């Protein structure tokens, strides 16, 4: 597996677009918390009135709230990382290098594994960056930090990892099916809204299954956290049930990619 990862990284480490997109995504992750602060400052400056409550005191970036808040926002940005996956994999098909890889001695399964290894590494890397950003931001803004509070809710970073990994594998599958990068990115962008519309229009009798749709079940792991600031009840933990459903979807995606690769003439 490490050999296959190394092969894939050999292809990517000298590819400028790969680095540019990764760095942009990294900057996005680092930039969001300061964006939030600027937004709160702006609220304060225009004199937004929360019953004389200072917007800067809203504990958005305080431990332990910060974990669910930032990971939820980051899951909305995963399309940017998916672009990296779509471009690098569709390149293999447009350059026909996947064909040469097989001729040279990779099996179709090896090709799949090498791409999955890279996707895993990308997800892991960005999760570590999220962890680091969360810790540093939390340390800066939380008044009276206690060590036990710092890691309370850190499991949201794991949920972020799984959500991102699942989406990237989904992007992998779409690329294999559609082959063209621009088309694939477009479909990935409209897929989620389409899924939401579908769920909203499900007949009453089967309404419940909407929660098990691929991207919906993944997003159910981390629920929208912000209503808690207007005193609504939210799911402030990672739903283990939907972790299981997400894992199931990932296994299905991988199986679909494998079957498609196996059956096609390259």
């Amino acid at each position, binding site marked *: 597996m490490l*050999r296959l990862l*190394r*092969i894939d990284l*050999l*292809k990517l480490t*000298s*590819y*400028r677009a790969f680095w540019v997109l990764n760095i942009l995504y990294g900057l996005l992750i680092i930039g969001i918390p300061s964006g939030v602060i600027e937004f709160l400052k702006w609220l304060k400056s225009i004199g937004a009135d929360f019953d004389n409550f200072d917007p800067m005191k809203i504990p958005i970036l305080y431990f332990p709230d910060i974990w669910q808040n930032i990971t939820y926002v980051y899951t909305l940005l995963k399309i940017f990382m998916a672009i990296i996956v779509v471009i690098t994999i569709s*390149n293999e098909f447009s*350059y*026909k*290098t996947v*064909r*040469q*890889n*097989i*001729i*040279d*001695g*990779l*099996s179709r399964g*090896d090709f799949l594994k090498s791409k999955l290894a890279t996707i895993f590494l990308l997800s892991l890397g960005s999760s570590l960056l999220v962890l680091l950003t969360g810790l540093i931001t939390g340390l800066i803004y939380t008044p009276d930090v206690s060590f036990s509070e710092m890691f309370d809710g850190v499991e949201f970073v794991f949920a972020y990892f799984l959500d991102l990994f699942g989406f990237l594998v989904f992007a992998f599958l779409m690329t294999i099916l559609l082959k063209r990068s621009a088309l694939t990115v477009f479909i990935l962008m409209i897929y989620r809204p389409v899924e939401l519309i579908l769920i909203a229009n499900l007949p009453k009798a089967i309404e419940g299954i909407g929660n098990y749709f691929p991207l919906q079940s993944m997003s159910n792991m981390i629920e929208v956290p912000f209503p808690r600031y207007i005193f609504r009840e939210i799911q402030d933990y990672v739903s283990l049930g939907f972790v299981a459903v997400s894992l199931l979807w990932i296994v299905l995606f991988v199986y679909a990619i494998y079957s498609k690769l196996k*059956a096609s*003439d*390259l």
Partner: protein
Amino acid sequence: MENVLSIKGLTKRYGRLTAVNDLSLEVGRGDVFGILGPNGSGKTTTLGILLDVINKTSGEFSWFGQPPTKEVRKRIGAILETPIFYPYLSAVKNLEIVAAIKEAPTANIEPALKKVELFERKDDKFRTYSLGMKQRLSIASALICDPEVMILDEPTNGLDPQGIAEIRELIKRIAAEGKTIILASHLLDEVQKVCTHFCVLKKGSLLYSGSVDEIGAGAVTVEVMADQALDGALKNWTGAKEVKQENGRYVVTLAEDQSAVGLNRYLFEQGLVASHLLTQKKSLEKQFLELLAESENA
């Protein structure tokens, strides 16, 4: 002799089209084996199946007497159709990927690049290469694993005469090292110049398979020209099977065991002096066209 490749009843259908039809072939160790056929005769499809990029419909094949696996492919150096590399990577980086896939030592990269005379351009990106350089790089890539078998598909396609000559020299040099080479081409001349064995495909079916020398062993013709008329003398010569006149030249088909020497001596004895005497072995091209014509009539 041990067979490097043996194919039995290989068939590939695309819907109603049969690209490869019940093909059976044997390639021996050390052969330079040419696969001839017009465009669209199934050459590349056959090689694609042998290299697992195309799924067969039915039939079997084995490499080195083993069922085909990725491990077997690591011992084969192959290029199908156009040279395929990552355009944004340098020659060296591209070959590093090939070496990693084939689990071959990276120390093989430098000698391979030197062999195809690309060492000076090794750090330039693949996309900046000319077609001839790309073809040579793909041969270098096929050499990375010090392969037991090399598969080359139309290796001189789109090259200028100098490029063609270079690639041919390279193939001959590699063949001289005792490697088995499988060469698909629609250029007969090319196959005749470098191959020891060949087969002819048409619409996916095997028309012929044999050695190139056997072709040369067929009837020999001699072109003769002289200042005097020769037809009477030539027709009376017992060594001639057939005499034809073409553009002021006589084309004499020799009987068995006869040669241009005998013809010359005979003419001289008759008091005739030839001004032009050219022996022509039956070329692969003629043989090929005959085979195709036969299959049309069949």
